[in-house]
């Protein structure tokens, strides 16, 4: 193509979004150092204090500091979303890549399975699974992985089909590499960028879904300071708006930052996306 290489838009979104996400990650890890006390410390005499210079985000029904709980909350919300996306991404990548590479009935079975899971109302299936397993961070993660992997599998399969017949794969066959060796060294590396792009775009949705499960009482349970569970705890407290507002704001800011970062990473990594201004 005779296209002149376009000047890329400066990746403001990537930088800003990445910085916010990185900040949240650092806060989550360093929460015990930043916070003056633990997230469960109660001061019943100071319950329902509105935001002030003493209690920046106010206090909840048990006099716990909302700011401290929001700082700690990122640990659970972010850990859940990241692990779900990583596990589902890896599982989906291998399932899709293998089914695309080997083809035949394996491929057929795998693709019908993805269609089935995707036709299913995800949150209802996840709900049923969590209820059956019992609520908890790990079980919620497991339920989400079960409904989360199909898009990765389908993307991986598509990319493998596109790569499989390329000359360099043919060359690898010609010089006598085994099928597994070709899969590992020629096929797998070529599909990883696509997986990373999908995963970064997907993280925001994983955070919202995970927090939503906790909101329904199916994920992290009280008194653990998970953001979704905290919003749920503040749900009935209409006069004490700060109890629900700040943890929700944390979710919102993280997701919006992740979306900007995800778009930026796609623009940077995916050569097929032409940035139009």
């Amino acid at each position, binding site marked *: 193509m005779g296209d002149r290489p376009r000047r890329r838009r400066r990746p403001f979104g990537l930088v800003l979004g990445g910085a916010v996400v990185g900040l949240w990650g650092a806060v989550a890890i360093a929460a015990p150092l930043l916070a003056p006390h633990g997230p469960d410390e109660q001061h019943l005499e100071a319950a329902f204090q509105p935001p002030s210079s003493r209690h920046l985000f106010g206090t909840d029904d048990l006099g716990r500091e909302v700011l401290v709980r929001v700082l700690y909350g990122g640990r659970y919300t972010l850990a859940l979303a990241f692990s779900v996306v990583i596990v589902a991404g890896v599982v989906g990548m291998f399932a899709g890549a293998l089914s695309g590479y080997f083809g035949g009935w394996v491929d057929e079975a795998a693709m*019908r399975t993805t*269609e*089935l*899971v995707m*036709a*299913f*109302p995800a*949150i*209802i*299936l996840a*709900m*049923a*699974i969590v*209820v*059956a*397993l*019992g609520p908890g961070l790990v079980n919620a993660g497991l339920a989400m992985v079960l409904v989360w992997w199909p898009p990765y599998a389908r993307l991986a399969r598509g990319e493998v089909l596109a790569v499989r017949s390329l000359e360099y794969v043919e060359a690898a066959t010609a010089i006598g590499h085994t099928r597994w060796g070709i899969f590992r060294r020629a096929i797998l590396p070529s599909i990883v960028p696509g997986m990373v792009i999908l995963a970064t775009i997907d993280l*925001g949705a994983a955070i*919202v879904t995970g*927090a*939503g499960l906790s*909101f*329904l009482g199916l994920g992290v349970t009280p008194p653990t300071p998970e953001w*979704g569970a905290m*919003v*749920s705890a*503040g*749900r009935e407290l*209409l*006069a004490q*708006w700060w109890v*629900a*507002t700040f943890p*929700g*704001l944390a*979710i*919102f800011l993280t*997701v*919006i930052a992740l*979306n*900007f970062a995800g778009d930026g990473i796609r623009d940077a990594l995916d050569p097929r996306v032409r940035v139009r201004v």
Partner: protein
Amino acid sequence: MGRYLVRRVLVALPTLVGITGVTFLVSHLLPSDLVLTSLGDRATQSPALVAAFRHRWGLDQPMMIQYLIYFGNLLHGDLGTSIATNRPVLTELALSLPATVELATVSLLAALGAGIALGVLAAGTRNAAVDAVARGLSAIGVAIPTFWFGILLVSTVYFRLGWAPPPGRLTVGLTAPEPVTGMFLVDALLRGRPDLFADALRHMVLPAIVLATVGVGFVTRITRASMLEVIAQDYVRTARAKGLARWSVVSRHALRNALIPVITIGGTLYAQLMSGTVLTETIFSWPGMGRYAFSSAASLDFPAVMGVALVVGVIYVIVNLWVDMLYVLVNPRVRYQ
């Protein structure tokens, strides 16, 4: 066209059967104790009670047989009996589905209206400020957690400002219009009760805003992109060259073609709204299918959960069919064999 429709429905059947299979497996293979959940600690001490319960719900049969029985009943239009309420699942769904359909439809219309207007404005004016507002709104709409947004609206618009009624479908004390469709807006009009119509509509504003906000972002993005593409085409330039005013070209010539991709996203959105209302319905005490699904799942009421999953699956199939039919109306070049 008729044959095409029949084929599409036949192709969808295996997926629907698969959905019942998956729900069945999930509810029967996972290590949950239905007996304990339904009867409580005390009753599980009595073997006779447990045996009677297991027999009543067919749990003493091999799993394959249980599924075949369920499936056989399904073919007769029997979705089973809810374990939690002892009423037919079909009856319960008939009560909750209209509430969800009503809310989802109003939300979809709001999202399409606002999204198309914003998208056209952003593409048509090529004004940086309008574009930035449209982009900002869509970024927010995609990122905002619905459950949090819903709570914020309830606590500010209802509680603090008093501009909206409290959660629920009607003001407490009012009786719902005599059911025809189960959708209060439609029924109120059919029964000639404008007062009930107004009340139901006021109760719908906040939940509809929450649900529509998620969609507005998508619709705006798609409309804007598609509009920019169409505006660049020759026939639009010709129309301009004939001397037509800019906005009449945009609204009469360009918009029609630009709307085709919007129909697709609208269909997807509608189907998502039907199944994705669990959180919104919980917050706004909306007695729809989402709340029903949640309470059924929470009590391990598997016939009810399977019923909801099946209905949602059927809705997906129907909405996708509608979308394909709409294509024919909008774009005469599309023909189905």
